[in-house]
């Protein structure tokens, strides 16, 4: 530890995944996450790991499902259109209570969209994404350092709660280079999971990994159990960064690269004498609703800063039960707002001019 190296965000994810004990990567090429797969292709064969370029995103996520069923740490990565293709498989993984990591280095949409950074997969990531009732643990890094840190955290949480986790990044954090302190190499010693398929060795009844329950009350019970687990996660695992919130009268809410831009705007607003702070969700699911709810008691309003047409803003309104106004500052399609645009939003919320 202590050594900083200069790395691209996408590569930091890959190296952090390896250091956290991941030895299985299966994916399909797509911009802007290419470096991640390339890094894995180079490294995995040297350390006895598995790198496989699948025939499609659909095949890749189903290979992930297969590895996850054996109880091994496994990941895939893609970008928005590819993540849409993976949704069926993600639903099966959630329905079978299997852990894995899915990285989405988001680009603008809908459709083929563009290849520039975006946060417009927020709904898809935080509300389930595929068919049926389920959630993913969603972490949102805003620096290359966090790309590395949150990769290990996402794996750990996925395994702790036996559910898929998503690292929701954007093309900017994926592509930019920053100094990063990589996590220590974790012992990859494998412990058998008591639910995994590894062969019965004729010593136990067969394990079945499955999401099919044709008896409705059985399926309902499964869903109730899963949501009880989700409730515990919402109570204990929400993570966020609080920035200058102690005396704040306006609360900016932003994640990922939008939070980096917003931080500058908050400082500029402070220089103008405006009492502004920021809550930066680090987990998007569970959403830091409690922190926002408490902030709503003190501030006069919120500013949601997003690289989308306004998605997280709904969760902010829900968290604060619409008790305070929420202003949206947004860009879409691969465009990024400037600190001045955020500052204009802050001034508007403050009741001043927003020109």
């Amino acid at each position, binding site marked *: 530890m202590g050594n900083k190296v200069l790395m691209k965000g996408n590569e930091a994810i890959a190296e952090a995944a390896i250091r956290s004990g991941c030895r299985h990567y299966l994916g399909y090429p797509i911009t802007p996450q290419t470096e991640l797969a390339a890094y894995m292709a180079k490294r995995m064969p040297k350390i006895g790991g598995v790198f496989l370029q*699948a025939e499609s995103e659909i095949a890749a996520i189903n290979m992930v499902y297969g590895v996850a069923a054996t109880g091994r740490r496994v990941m895939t990565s893609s970008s928005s259109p590819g993540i849409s293709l993976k949704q069926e498989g993600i639903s099966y993984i959630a329905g079978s209570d299997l852990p894995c990591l899915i990285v989405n280095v988001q680009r603008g949409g809908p459709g083929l969209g563009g290849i520039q950074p975006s946060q417009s997969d927020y709904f898809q990531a935080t509300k389930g994404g595929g068919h049926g009732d389920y959630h993913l643990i969603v972490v949102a890094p805003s620096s290359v350092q966090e790309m590395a840190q949150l990769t290990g955290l996402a794996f750990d949480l996925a395994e702790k709660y036996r559910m898929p986790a998503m690292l929701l990044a954007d093309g900017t954090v994926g592509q930019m280079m920053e100094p990063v302190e990589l996590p220590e190499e974790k012992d990859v010693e494998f412990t058998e999971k008591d639910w995994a398929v590894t062969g019965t060795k004729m010593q136990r009844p067969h394990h079945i990994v499955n999401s099919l329950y044709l008896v409705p009350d059985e399926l309902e019970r499964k869903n109730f159990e899963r949501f009880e687990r989700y409730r515990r996660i919402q109570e204990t695992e929400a993570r966020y960064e609080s920035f200058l919130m102690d005396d704040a009268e306006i609360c900016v809410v932003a994640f990922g690269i939008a939070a980096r831009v917003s931080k500058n705007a908050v400082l500029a607003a402070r220089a103008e004498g405006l009492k502004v702070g920021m809550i930066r969700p680090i987990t998007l699911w569970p959403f830091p609703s409690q922190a926002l709810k408490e902030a709503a008691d003190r501030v006069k309003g919120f500013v949601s800063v997003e690289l989308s047409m306004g998605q997280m803003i709904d969760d902010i309104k829900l968290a604060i039960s619409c008790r305070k106004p929420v202003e949206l500052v947004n860009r879409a399609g691969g465009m990024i707002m400037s600190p001045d645009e955020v500052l204009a939003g802050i001034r508007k919320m403050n009741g001043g001019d927003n020109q």
Partner: protein
Amino acid sequence: MIVFEKPKSLTDAELHYCPGCTHGIIHRLVAEAIDTLGIEGRTIGIAPVGCAVMAYNYFACDMVEAAHGRAPAVATGIKRSLPENIVFTYQGDGDLASIGMAETVHAATRNENITVIFVNNAIYGMTGGQMAPTSLPGQITQTSPYGRDVKTAGYPVKVAELLSALDGPEFIARVAVNNVKNVKNAKKIIQKAFENQIEGKGFSLVEVISACPTNWGMTPQNALKWIDEKMIPYYPLGIFKDKSEGKEAGER
């Protein structure tokens, strides 16, 4: 003295298949192969979506239920993760030759060291008898009520022939289970498909021509006859590819 018993690799669960359906025979042949080779403790099976969706209750080894068509991808993940285990998929024609064609072809071309049991009964059974990728020209189904018209619905997919044209796969064969002679041969071929995997040879697929009296609208006896008269002439039996034996596509 036991003269007849259920294979150990089948559980005691009662099969849900229709009267006259040959899935039961094919399950048994797979289980017998696993028993004979003594691999039950290290075998992992993948069930499809379709009539055999609940195969995970019938095979006594560890089992995974895959999404429709994705069994070869799931098998790939498992086999790459646990190369010492024996991994097989059990899939129908809609699953393997329609929605899952890409996964099938690419697992074959990678020569993924897995065993694929492909049950071809020329119809979608579970959903009530729709046209399958392998339904014969002129075959009447719920979604080809005037008979499969090749001008609009295209031609049946000959999976064994198609895959044997690839350089990748180790072993591709087609068998049937409509009479004792064919069943005995199918048993031998299915066992070989597992032996190939044990020996690390690679992708081995056995297409099994199977009967669906319920959705064909026939008695079980007539369904077995229909296999001889209609199915086998279109889908000839034999070993299409056996790389280790130097047998490539085209020689049968």
